């Protein structure tokens, strides 16, 4: 595809810090190559702002290849913007039209407070993982990796779930700000494998309890999270989480 240059109008959320009230600012950007990525477009905006002695727009990003999960923009009302199965850093400007107005916001989630501009605090995710997102094994003293055969379909399905990058798009998209897709990805991955099976119930219970404590909403099965997940994590994992959670409570 031949590249071309386009002009854009940006409507960007600016917010000094967690306590201050934010507002949209408008910027004009000219001659953006359609081959550049969305974040490279923001780089250009920031160079322009620095040139004008203004503070650049703060946004999270790091690997810029769709795997670290750091980037987190709500673009024209969609988590990670108008393309499927990608993160913001993989979104390219060829998805936009010349002269288009692009609205850029942070994740709007109570449990992820804004730090500055487009950057949010996802510490809540860390706390959920610390509550149970692991197999309780220490380093060393482990049997041979081939000691326990695992059916390929199970390993593959575990891998599907394990692909979660912890970006928060699911929560940002959910009308209830539920973290069920995120939690279910980890619970499901480990429940599918014999190594994680041992603690499957207690894991589900602990992670769900922490999720509730941190103020994430309930799941009402609308499936919006699944639509916006950059890694294609499906609702089937939420079903598995519910099963584990139910079993855990029945046992109590």
């Amino acid at each position, binding site marked *: *595809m031949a*590249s071309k240059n386009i002009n854009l109008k940006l409507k960007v959320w600016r917010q000094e*810090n967690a306590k201050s009230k934010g507002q949209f600012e408008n910027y004009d950007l000219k001659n*953006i*190559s359609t*081959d*550049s*990525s969305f*974040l*490279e477009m923001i*780089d250009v905006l920031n*160079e322009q702002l*620095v040139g004008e002695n203004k503070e*650049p727009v*703060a946004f999270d990003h*790091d*690997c*810029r*290849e769709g*795997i*670290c*999960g*750091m980037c987190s923009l709500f673009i024209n009302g969609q988590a990670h913007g108008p*393309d499927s199965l*990608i993160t913001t850093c*993989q979104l390219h400007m060829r998805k936009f039209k010349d002269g288009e107005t692009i609205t850029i916001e942070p994740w709007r989630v109570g449990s992820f407070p804004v*730090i500055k501009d487009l950057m949010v605090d*996802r*510490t809540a*995710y*860390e706390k959920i*993982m*610390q509550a149970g*997102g*692991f*197999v*309780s*094994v*220490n*380093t*060393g003293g*482990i*049997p*041979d*990796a*081939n000691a*326990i*055969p*695992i059916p*390929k379909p199970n*390993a*593959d399905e*575990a*891998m599907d779930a*394990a*692909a979660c*990058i912890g970006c928060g798009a699911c929560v940002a998209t959910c009308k209830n700000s539920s973290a069920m897709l995120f939690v279910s990805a980890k619970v499901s*991955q480990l429940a599918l*494998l014999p*190594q994680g099976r041992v603690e499957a119930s207690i894991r589900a219970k602990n992670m769900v309890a922490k999720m509730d404590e941190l103020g994430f909403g309930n799941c009402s099965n609308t499936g919006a999270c699944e639509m916006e997940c950059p890694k294609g994590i499906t609702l089937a994992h939420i079903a598995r989480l519910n099963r584990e959670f139910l079993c855990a409570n029945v046992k109590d």
Partner: protein
Amino acid sequence: MTKLNSKIPEGKLKDKWSNYKAHQNLVNPANKRKIDVIVVGTGLAGGAAAASLAELGFKVKNFCYQDSPRRAHSIAAQGGINAAKNYPNDGDTVYRLFYDTIKGGDYRARESNVYRLAEVSNSIIDQSVAQGVPFAREYGGLLDNRSFGGALVSRTFYARGQTGQQLLLGAYSGLSRQIGLGNVEMFNRTELMDIVVIDGKARGIVTRNLITGKIESHFGHAVVLATGGYGNVFFLSTNAMGSNGSAAWKAYKKGAFMSNPCFVQIHPTAIPQHGDFQSKLTLMSESLRNDGRIWVPRKKEDAVAIREGKKRPEDLPDEDRDFYLERRYPAFGNLVPRDVAARAAKERTDAGFGIENNPKKEGVYLDFKYAIKRLGRDAIEERYGNLFQMYEKITDDNPYKTPMKIFPAIHYSMGGIWVDYELQTTIPGLFAAGEANFSDHGANRLGASALMQGLADGYFVLPYTIQNYLAYEFDTPRMDPKTQKEFKKTEDEVKARIDKLMNIKGKQSVDSFHKRLGRVMWDKVGMARDGKGLQTAINEIKQIRKEFWQDLKIPGEKETLNVELEKANRVADFLELGELMARDALARKESCGGHFRTEYRSEEGEAKRNDAEYMYVAAWEYKGDNKEPALHKEPLQYEEIEVKTRNYKTA
């Protein structure tokens, strides 16, 4: 003369690690609680070390600049991890993995460290499986393997095209568990600013909270740097945007030696650059070379026509395609090591056969047509689906239908902080693990060996060797950084540097300087180097550095989130590190691995080593800001291996 003591244990190569463990000092469980260990970085080496040390009972403080330890750039490793399991029964052994790694590194790595690496490789796979890492499996339920460059066996374990992610999340799960248990105190969005050395020993670090801008001190009985590589000195690389060399550089300035800084790996298969706005280069995994065939047009006029969009590559018949790796290296073909593959791509594009219409006409094809014909599209999709998807999103080309365009890109730093067998630097109590140290990959790293080394250091080496130091430290009382004068002094130095940066108030942005540095590095300290170019590079870097300190512009305030200030801090260090890299490349008057001096090549154009004079590890000692650094040499002795010219033409 030399201050370097590599502390290689006595005994035969295969017994050294066992001997070491049998005789090393350990810390008793009750005393472990009295010891604080600082770990900087949460990638495979740092995350694994922090978790493992905490499990042992040490009190760990772990730092990362990202918002979560799960984001460290190990996560982006795609292809796989090597281990000498020999599950495929194709003749692999610990010795063969060791041998391939030494040979792949062009005989510039320390034999004892590499043997240990190969020895612990199998435990890493066991460990990861126990954590729930969903490696690829065969239908019988057992683990699958694939091949990588520089090996004649299939010893690479993988989890689709995201092996680094899965291994990192495994380490992260262990780390999360220890944070939850209160054994690790985690500091996210916190960047190391300097290392505190008291009476000759590393005793802590000074950090900047990236949200508040607050400068803080942290005490540790020992400090571990697991801060990755410095590839971003080139501006464009496959590293993450935040990856930097500053921790290593601070260590260097405090007395740790920097080793072989000119050894950087140029990965042969990244997506070619396409514009000035570009912020990074995206890697396409080496695993793709299992099934993809690399070629350029045989005729120059076809290359021109393709660049101009007048011809499509898929229309070019086989006889008009030059499969130059298969032609030049029949035994290894498309699976030659990275340095060899990268140079061969440069050779073809320099000769005018490049296929991408970018400023330098750089690019070659990686074609899956043949594999799709042989195995079917489904098999290829299962193996590489996510990589193909990523490629298509970036380039808008469908690699199932048209060959991928690829070109070499800066990827990994083999050079790094000098460490002894215990992974200890020349500063007692300061350790370096993973890509941050220099020890295992010599002048070129083999594919799927970075994950192996990071986790080997973090899980199975450092938790042992650090105790040999800490066994003498348990009765050192914890220090209070608020009252200890060395901490205060280091904090003041850090604050003074930040003020200096903020007060330049010039006209040019950090990125503009970084891009200029990157261009000098890529053109003169990149894939091919020569004495004259390196000397020019040193002068040019000095000039850019001078301008940087006179004309840098940083908007905003220092005591708040300020991304430009963060970048400025890192680029200021890159502007010094880049010069040392050029200096190291200039001093090494030979070609080896990724270090290719055009003056030193064989008649066939291959890298020509000079073992008589350069079979050593270069270790640079900082002597002061305007003084020449001192070069120390650690001679490399190969007892078990016959040193040969690398040959990938015949088996």
